[in-house]
């Protein structure tokens, strides 16, 4: 990945917000890549999980929010269980989704889910999906 760094970006208040919401220590990550190796959905992601943390360490939050990675994460928590440094990436992904959704934007629109799907999907799928992807 090639990114241009500036001092303003490194001092990004959204990063503080991510740390506050997630309670995770972004700077403990030493890029071993175990989260990406174990992630069951990383093959569908624009950028892999460990790169998300790397970008956050450099304040590059916009670089992440325009990618699909945070919306592919299924919160299975495998990354957090395996991280040798105890960085809870599942909480960081949640914080990223919250930063996006709190601008009053939905990622999934419940009224666009086809009727026949609503009839067959289990409630837990719908509630979980809307919890994660709507504000």
């Amino acid at each position, binding site marked *: 990945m090639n990114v241009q760094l500036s001092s303003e970006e490194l001092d990004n208040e959204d990063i503080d917000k991510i740390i506050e919401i997630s309670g995770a220590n972004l700077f403990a990550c030493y890029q071993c890549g175990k989260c990406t190796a174990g992630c069951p959905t990383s093959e*569908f992601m624009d950028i892999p999980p460990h790169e998300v943390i790397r970008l956050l360490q450099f304040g590059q939050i916009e670089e992440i929010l325009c990618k699909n990675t945070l919306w592919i994460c299924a919160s*299975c928590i495998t990354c957090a269980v395996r991280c040798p440094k105890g960085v809870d990436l599942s909480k960081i992904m949640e*914080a990223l989704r919250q930063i996006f959704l709190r601008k009053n934007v939905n990622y999934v629109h419940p009224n666009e889910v086809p009727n026949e799907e609503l009839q067959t*999907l*289990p409630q837990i*799928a719908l509630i979980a999906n809307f*919890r994660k992807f709507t504000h």
Partner: protein
Amino acid sequence: MLTVSYMPGCTLKTTGRNYEDSMLKLLYKLNVKVEELKNWFCCGTTYSMASDNLMNQLAPIRTLLRAKQTGRRELLVLCSMCYNTLRRAQDLVLHDEEKRNKINEFMYLEETNFNGDEVRVIHLLNYLKEFIGFETLADGIIKKTSDLKVAPYYGCMLLRPEEISIDESSENPGIMEELFQACGIDNVYFPFKTECCGSYQTVNKKDIVISRTSKIINSAVNNKADMITTSCPLCYFNLDSSQGTLVDNVPGFKTIPVMYVSQILALFVGIEDATDYSMHSIDPRPVLKEKGLLG
């Protein structure tokens, strides 16, 4: 006779009905009285991981309050997502004094506070192990089959994060295998037993779920399983319903029925009417008949 409080959650009343029906009949036979909480709340299905938003913790905590008010310590939960959400909300209240006070202050109209240690959220598998005992359960087994091979699938929400895992090992759990072994049911090892099925992505990104479930199913089939068992209504749905698409799109794809743990156990202790087989996309009856478990 044992009596236990029970929180079903939303899905066990609809697409997961087979799970609840078979559990109720199984526990009745095992002399356990199951009392559903009179006023339970939707758990929210996924634990809210945003530390600055406590609103999402209120519903699970209120359910735990109702459980506390029954005066019984155990709260039986079947659904993996309810289990995860309730356990994590409980842990939050137990370990974070500031948040505990905030939540209790907000719920000032409730008759009592919740401190986090009054109730034990217990999953069906742990309940069977600790309160019934696998040996007692095995004594009730009246059907014998020599060659039904079951692939026990755990999914995520019973195991992760580690603090709330139903098994000592969240990487390589064995409680379901132990249960089946005790009951004389063969199980196969398959390396995808704790891999995510794609979960709620089934609403808007079906391709992810299809990709995940095909790997899990193929792994079970390649390890010679006749059946996958699970205890999560969402894993069940994803694993069962995706097989129709896989049959249409993957040449040579081999289907495998998916059943809830309690459905299998009910069958082995001789309860034949616990399950509505028409709810399965992949009908388990041919396999069950072949193995002599259904007449």
